[in-house]
Structure formats: structure tokens, C-alpha cells
């Protein structure tokens, strides 16, 4: 057999490379995009944190990210660490090597792990992350702006709860939650929890209604959503449907096949479930008889979805095209265009944000250099009086940032908070 000419072989190889090579073109050139890059803004909410709530209470924003961070909605003031002594006199800010955290008088390290508001009161969930986990520095507290002390909300028997999740489901495209729920864990001897109960948080008074507790759940609630009338509560493997927390035993049927549910969101007559098995499940209320999945919502041009965290509906930049935003555990988030009638999305692919099509963003390079560098855990919407800005809470990994990111609706650009 004749030996191939090495020159010919090289030319064939190069030609094949040109033919086989695929380009990922998101409308921004690589070199041209880098020309427009700017350095990331300095972050005030630590990159190593993973925010669990963003609310507008009065004229100030509050973020639960271990510490509570706050700043005025208007103006250019930076975030500051909220003093926990405004909640309880025995709590204070500890600072070492530029890092700030909350401690109680006994030296236990306290985290604010949840935050919600009904517009009248701020609700704060505290957990002890280092020290005596069963001590006084935990539970559910409420606070009003300007108050010098908070008040703890106890269960009906006057006992402190082990708060394990604060949920404030907001109807898609609305502003305020119609109810706030808190999950309490029943501790076991090994430091975990044997079961969980869900309570509806009262809008007045300081005691949880005993009749509102649910039968104990073996798994914790991971997310709650509402269409304004009904609530859907998701554990990692089941969905519960109820008009209130009190009748939570009514398991939603049919059950989704996923056992790794991460989030649930109801919008335009459809419930979406995100799961860690690389799927989004979809159920049209009153029509569907089974959860749809198996690739209907996979990323355009790809055979796999990223594992998914939070979801939220938000309008696209510059036009009023409603979008479902889905956080990914690899980079940033994906978008899905939602049809007005709640039907199957005709452009039903998750896609990367792209400034050249209906999208939440106006600048791909800005997206690529900001929230793309984060694993998005949850989204939060804040109405600034004119438009609704989106906040994305990140989870810190070795190569990605945690902390908080903000999409300014008026500009379609992300920035680091």
C-alpha cells in the first residue's frame, strides 16, 4: 500500500477541521466582545455567601446572606451590614480579617437564613451555624423598620421553632406575597430532623396558629409557588396542593417522576418543576393528566440541560415578552419564552440570554462577565416603582462566584451587588 504523502495528509486534516469545527455564535464576537469588557464591580455582599432572600421593605432593600445586608432602594448608597442588635440586644457583629458575622453573647455564630415581608413586618429566620445549635439564638423573628428590637414568633404552645425555611410565594409578575410560610424541623438525636411541619406566618400577633400546622412531612419543603389562589408545595420528590397550609396533606396527583425537585413555579396556568435530573417538568392546570418532560425544554442546540435551581418569570428587556428564567448549576441562567395563553411554549427551548432576540439582557458581554460566572440558586424580583429588577442569588463554588447579582430592567444589564 502506498504511503500517504505527509503534506497531503496535513492539508486534508486542516480541511476536515474547518468543515467539522462548530462555532457558538451568540451575536457577540469574541475579540470584539472583550474590547467592551469592564472589570467586575466590587462586591459588597460577599462572593462566598449564598443569599437566601431579597426583599424591599419600606424604602430599603434587605438581603439574607448569612448576615443581613441593607441599602436604600433609591440613590447610590452601598450595602451595609444590618446590626443584629436591632433584633435582639444580645446579638452583635463580629469582625476579623475584614470578614463580618453575627454572634450571640455565648459566642455562637448566627446566620440569617431566610427573609420575607408582607409589607408591614419583616420576617427573619435565624439558625445557629457554629456553637450551641439548640440555644436561644435561632427561630423566627419579626421586625418593623425603625424598631430597636424584634419579636420572636413562637408556636401555639409558646415554644421556639427550629426554622428550616421561609417561603413567600409571589404570583408571577405580581409584587407582594399573598402568604408567608415557615417550615419547622423536629430534631432527632443525631443533629438532623425526623420530620417537618409547615406553618402559615401570621400577619399580626406573634404566635403560629396550631391549626395551620400540617401533618409531619418526612421530607422538607424545598419551594412554594402560587397562582394567587392555590399553593403548590414541593419536596424533593412530591408536590402538595392546597389553598392553605392547613390542608397540605392533599398530595398533588399525578406525582412527578423526579425525586430531585429543586424548584416549583406557577405561571400562566402552568406549573413548572425544575429538577436535578436535567429536566423541567410541565403541568397545565386543569388540562394535563401527566407531567411532561423528556426533552421538551432542553437547551436549544444541546442534548442536556444543566442541573437546575430557581425559576422565576420576568419580562424581557425592552419588550413585554414574558420569560421564564431558569438558574443553572453550571453558569448563569436560561430563558424560556412564555406564550400568553399558557400553552406549550412554541419557542419552547431554554436558551442562553442573547441580546439579539427577545431576552432579559441587552448586552451579551455584560452577561458573560457578570452573572454567567455564578451558579444561580434563586431569583428574586423587586419592583422599583417603574420597572421590575431581577436579583440572582449565586452559590459559590471553586470556579464561580456566589453573592448577589442584579439585572436592571431599564438597561438590560447585570451588575454585582
Amino acid at each position, binding site marked *: 500500500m502506498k504511503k500517504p504523502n*505527509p*503534506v497531503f495528509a*496535513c*492539508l486534508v*486534516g*486542516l480541511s476536515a*477541521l*474547518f468543515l467539522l*469545527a*462548530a*462555532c*457558538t*455564535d*451568540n*451575536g*457577540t*464576537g*469574541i*475579540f*470584539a*466582545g*472583550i*474590547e467592551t*469588557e*469592564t*472589570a*467586575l464591580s466590587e462586591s459588597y455582599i460577599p462572593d462566598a455567601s449564598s443569599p437566601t432572600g431579597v426583599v424591599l421593605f419600606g424604602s430599603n432593600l434587605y438581603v439574607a446572606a448569612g448576615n443581613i445586608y441593607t441599602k436604600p432602594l433609591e440613590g447610590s448608597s452601598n450595602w451595609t451590614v444590618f446590626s443584629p442588635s436591632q433584633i435582639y440586644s444580645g446579638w452583635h457583629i463580629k469582625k476579623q480579617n475584614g470578614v463580618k458575622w453575627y454572634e450571640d453573647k455565648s459566642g455562637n455564630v448566627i446566620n440569617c437564613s431566610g427573609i420575607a415581608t408582607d409589607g408591614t413586618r419583616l420576617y427573619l429566620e435565624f439558625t445557629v451555624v457554629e456553637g450551641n445549635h439548640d440555644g436561644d439564638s435561632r427561630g423566627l423573628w419579626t421586625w418593623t423598620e425603625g424598631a430597636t428590637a424584634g419579636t420572636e414568633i413562637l408556636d401555639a404552645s409558646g415554644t421556639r421553632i427550629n426554622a428550616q425555611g421561609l417561603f413567600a410565594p409571589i404570583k408571577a409578575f405580581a409584587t407582594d406575597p399573598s402568604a408567608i410560610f415557615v417550615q419547622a424541623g423536629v430534631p432527632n438525636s443525631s443533629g438532623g430532623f425526623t420530620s417537618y411541619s409547615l406553618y402559615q406566618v401570621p400577619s399580626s400577633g406573634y404566635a403560629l396558629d396550631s391549626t395551620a400546622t400540617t401533618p409531619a412531612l418526612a421530607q422538607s419543603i424545598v419551594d412554594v409557588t402560587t397562582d394567587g389562589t392555590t399553593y403548590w408545595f414541593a419536596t424533593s420528590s412530591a408536590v402538595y396542593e392546597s389553598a392553605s397550609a392547613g390542608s397540605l396533606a392533599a398530595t398533588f396527583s399525578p406525582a412527578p417522576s423526579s425525586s430531585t425537585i429543586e424548584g416549583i413555579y406557577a405561571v400562566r396556568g402552568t406549573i413548572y418543576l425544575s429538577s436535578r435530573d436535567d429536566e423541567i417538568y410541565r403541568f397545565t392546570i386543569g388540562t394535563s393528566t401527566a407531567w411532561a418532560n423528556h426533552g421538551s425544554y432542553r437547551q436549544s442546540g444541546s442534548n442536556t440541560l444543566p442541573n437546575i435551581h430557581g425559576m422565576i418569570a420576568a419580562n424581557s428587556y425592552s419588550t413585554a415578552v414574558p420569560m421564564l428564567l431558569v438558574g443553572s448549576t453550571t*453558569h448563569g441562567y436560561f430563558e424560556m419564552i412564555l406564550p400568553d395563553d399558557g400553552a406549550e411554549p412554541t419557542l419552547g427551548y431554554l436558551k*442562553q440570554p442573547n441580546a*439579539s432576540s427577545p431576552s432579559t439582557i441587552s448586552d451579551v458581554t455584560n452577561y*458573560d*462577565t*457578570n452573572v*454567567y*460566572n455564578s451558579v444561580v440558586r434563586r431569583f428574586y424580583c423587586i419592583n422599583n416603582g417603574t420597572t421590575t429588577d431581577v436579583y440572582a442569588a449565586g452559590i459559590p463554588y471553586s470556579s464561580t462566584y456566589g453573592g448577589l447579582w442584579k439585572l436592571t430592567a431599564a438597561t438590560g444589564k447585570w451588575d454585582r451587588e
Partner: protein
Amino acid sequence: MSKKTILGILSLMGFLAILPAAADETAAKPTALPTVENRMITKLFNPGDKIFSISLGVEDPLFNINPNNEKMIKPKLSLGGSAELEWDFFVLPGFALGGQLGGAFNSTPASRTLFMVPITFKTTYFFASLPWEFPVGLGVGTCIDTVSDSTHVDLFFKPQAGVFYRATPDWSFGMNLSYWIIPQFYSAHPQQSRIANILGVTLSGLYHF
């Protein structure tokens, strides 16, 4: 950058490309085999000889050209690192054909990393005054450029010159100076097209076999 400058660069590349035609006239043809460390050098860039080289170095993005308005633009890329593997096969005295696989990275202002993987078909002519060697070559090929989720495959041109010292009969060590030209064109978004211009310097080891 003006059209004249671009034409100048293209002319230089053309000159380098036709240089091998003169290989028979200018290639080193020592009448007696030279020695290094008392060993005779037998691999003297004759047909059938081969070279494998490995290089490490730095590259500095100098400027981009916007082909839409021919303006030079600051690339906003940091000094980067590069590595290359090359194989050459001598087809004429002093004249080799081969291929080069490289990799390079640069940081962007937002702390992203641009990765470039050039794959080139290469012609090289070796001027020699042993133990000194002066390779001059031109690489033409493709460069896979990636930043974040964006990947683009571009044309790649790389004129290159070096100086090496034959330290042993089998090994030469030295450095290369190269100029990378990466035309990156977007047919759907022509305003995003750029021609990147990058200067590279590497330290290299050549193995003759």
C-alpha cells in the same frame, strides 16, 4: 491600520511563503560534518530529516483591527502564556514542511480567560551556520478561540523567526519570535468582526531525528 499596512503584512507573508523556492541556493551545505561535544552532527536539514520541537512562552495581544472601518482597537487582553508542539519533515535541503499545535491563554478585564488553540500547516526554512540555526517560517491554519460559552474557529497566520544553538548533535535550544494574525469574521454580525494581532515569544527545544 491602513490598507497599505495590511498589504505590507500580506506581502511579507507571501515572501515567506515563496522563500523555500530558493532553498537549494541558500541552505547550509557544510562540506564536512561539524561536531558538537566531539560528536558529529549528522542531521543537517537534509531531505528525510525530521524535527520535533516543544516551546513555552508568552504572547502579547497588540491590537485588533475592525475591518469595517479599518481602525485599530485596544484588545484589552493581558499578557498571556503559550505552549506549542511542532513536527517538521525536510523535503528539500533546509526546507521543511510540518505542523504545529499550540495553546494560549489571556485574561480579560472581567477576569475571564480567552483560550486560543492554533493548529497550523507550516513551512520553515533553516538558515544554518552551525552550531547556530536560524529558522524562518510561516504557519497557516486555523485557531479555535473560546471565552465563556462562545467558541469561534478562525483563520490563522503566523510568520515566525528564531535563533537556535545546536547544543548536542540531537538537540538545539533557542527562541522564536512570532506574529499571530487571526481574522475573526462573523457573517451574521459583521460589525463584530475583528483581525487580532498578537506578538509571541517562546523558548524552544528542537529534537533532530
